[in-house]
């Protein structure tokens, strides 16, 4: 005879086993589709590059990782810092941060506007914000090109108004990439911002005004602290894909203004250096993870608290 305690323990064990069984299909897919490729990439980054792309299987070497920040001179074999790579890393981080800030400054008022509309109108505005998502990113990027190129709308109008005498070169600069990425990723900022703003009890705003806070003080002391989770979520959602952006810098930045995504693509394509490409990809992932960790730590430290 089993004691009640034994029966309970057995039932719990059975429960746990069932849970594992039921979740196993999902776990298998995650293992194969997400962790598997990452593992392959890690493996490739430590192998010798093949002569025509690919890698030489099971011939291990540190060359891939070596190449991330260093380069070997082709004549005398001296090691120098890979300036080009550093420039590209820096441009990626800088442009991603600027994109995040730009979308935050554009997205905040947009989200506030939507959140303060009557309930019925909000859905329409949200729908409008998400429309660009329905279009292929390549087409959206080319549309941006039409706006900012030398014969595009912005330059034509400014010349016509006499603000400038000759078109300003925006295409193929960092600024063009910034414009493009801010445009492409803006909805990713607006939606989480809206989600947290919608939850705000606007009587808190009234209470702020009632207690002698001016509009700016209400924004700074009440609205922003309450929307903080949305600001953090939106920033993560914009910063991370910006860092790995490929299409936008390719189209708007031209060949000179590469970002990390383009550099990685280059290694797998014309560069025929898969180990370097794999090492660069993992480096990008490490940067993203570090950025996320910093965010998460900051978020939990201040945890809605405000002095």
């Amino acid at each position, binding site marked *: 005879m089993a004691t009640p305690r034994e029966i309970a323990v057995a039932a719990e064990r059975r429960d746990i086993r069932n849970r594992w069984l039921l979740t196993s299909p999902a776990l298998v897919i995650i293992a194969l589709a997400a962790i598997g490729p990452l593992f392959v990439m890690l493996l490739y980054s430590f192998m010798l590059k093949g002569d025509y792309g690919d890698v030489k299987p099971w011939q291990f070497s540190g060359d891939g990782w070596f190449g991330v920040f260093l380069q070997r001179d082709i004549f005398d074999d001296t090691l120098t810092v890979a300036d080009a790579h550093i420039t590209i890393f820096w441009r990626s981080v800088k442009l991603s941060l600027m994109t995040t800030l730009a979308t935050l400054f554009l997205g905040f008022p947009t989200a506030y506007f939507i959140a303060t509309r009557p309930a019925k109108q909000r859905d329409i505005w949200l729908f409008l914000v998400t429309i660009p998502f329905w279009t292929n990113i390549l087409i959206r990027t080319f549309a941006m090109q039409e706006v900012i190129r030398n014969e595009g709308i912005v330059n034509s109008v400014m010349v016509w108004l006499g603000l400038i005498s000759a078109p300003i070169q925006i295409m193929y600069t960092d600024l063009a990439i910034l414009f493009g990425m801010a445009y492409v990723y803006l909805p990713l900022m607006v939606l989480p911002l809206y989600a947290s703003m919608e939850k705000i009890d606007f009587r808190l705003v*009234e*209470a*702020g005004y009632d207690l002698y806070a001016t509009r700016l003080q209400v924004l700074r*002391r009440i609205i922003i602290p309450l929307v903080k989770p949305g600001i953090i979520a939106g920033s993560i959602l914009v910063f991370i894909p910006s860092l790995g952006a490929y299409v936008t810098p390719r189209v708007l930045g031209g060949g000179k203004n590469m970002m990390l995504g383009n550099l990685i693509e280059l290694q797998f394509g014309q560069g025929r250096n898969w180990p370097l490409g794999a090492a660069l990809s993992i480096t990008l992932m490490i940067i993203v993870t570090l950025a996320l960790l910093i965010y998460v730590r900051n978020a939990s430290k201040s945890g809605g608290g405000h002095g």
Partner: protein
Amino acid sequence: MGKAAIEAVGVTKIFQSSGQDSLKALDNVSVTIGENEFFTLLGPSGCGKTTLLRLIAGFDFPTDGQILLHGQDIATLPPFQRPVNTVFQNYALFPHMTVGQNIGFGLEMQGKPKAQVEARVAEMLRLVQMEELKNRRTSQISGGQQQRVALARALAPEPKVLLLDEPLSALDYKLRKEMQIELKRLQNETGITFIFVTHDQEEALTMSDRIAVMSMGRILQVGSPRDIYDRPAVRFVANFIGETNFLEGKVVSTAKGQAKIALAAGPTIAAALGEGAKPSGMVTVVVRPEHASVIAASGKATLSGKLENIVYFGTDTHYHVKLNGGGEFTVRHQNIHAGALAFEKGDKVGVLFGADAARVLRD
């Protein structure tokens, strides 16, 4: 009533809702609220009481009319420029701040030095008996405590007028009773004018110095609780506050504050008139159930009828009398001492009340 703290002069507020239909929330409302007064706006939901409060606070602006604070028109000032603070219905405490930070917020926004803010916060915490909870988050305290914090927060900047928008409605019965006493105490101690909005007549009667009864965007009657209860001017006021017997009748004659009314139910009775009232034709007379008594049928009785029902309430007993001339009349007897009831269902009885208990309504 001393000097006026708040005066509303011909205030009208029309809400334009998406073009076609507009809502007249306030219709030419004028009222004067004295300094250091506990003034209550009483009425059913949708009567305009909260709208009037929001106009005084500055969250909305009147379509027409003036709102004066100590004689100065403030109707167009934004809320942060008015020395008026509000206790919101659901408190609207800032969830990202502690109790102490909430209370100090107004002073901080006024740019008071930190030491002064700290001292005042401590003083307010003491006033509402919450000293130990200064560093708690507002989500970590009970409803009654949140209520106290909301009060302390609104009182901390020493407003000229404190507005309270149904602040007790979210509390349970016992806590509500406690807070009623607490509010009255705070008003006495601070000497600030309180404007209190409620739909609860009992709350209004027990706490207020004066009450304004509102309906459909208008103020129907302003007066002390006793005025409002004992001398209702119009049917709505008589009906909204307490229970009332309505008797229809025709004016026979009027003389200095009194009228003779021939009731539809038969007898002719004397009833008090409102100040300056000169009624004629068909009128309504009201008698509060506790101002009349049931007696044995006799010539002394004002009205006579048959006892239809007796309902025992513990503290008092309600007698429902079917009047001989038609209509019903309810009498409330206080159960002064225990014992058998004097009457039984079906008895022929008389109803007795004096001329001062009966009152002719204006409408």
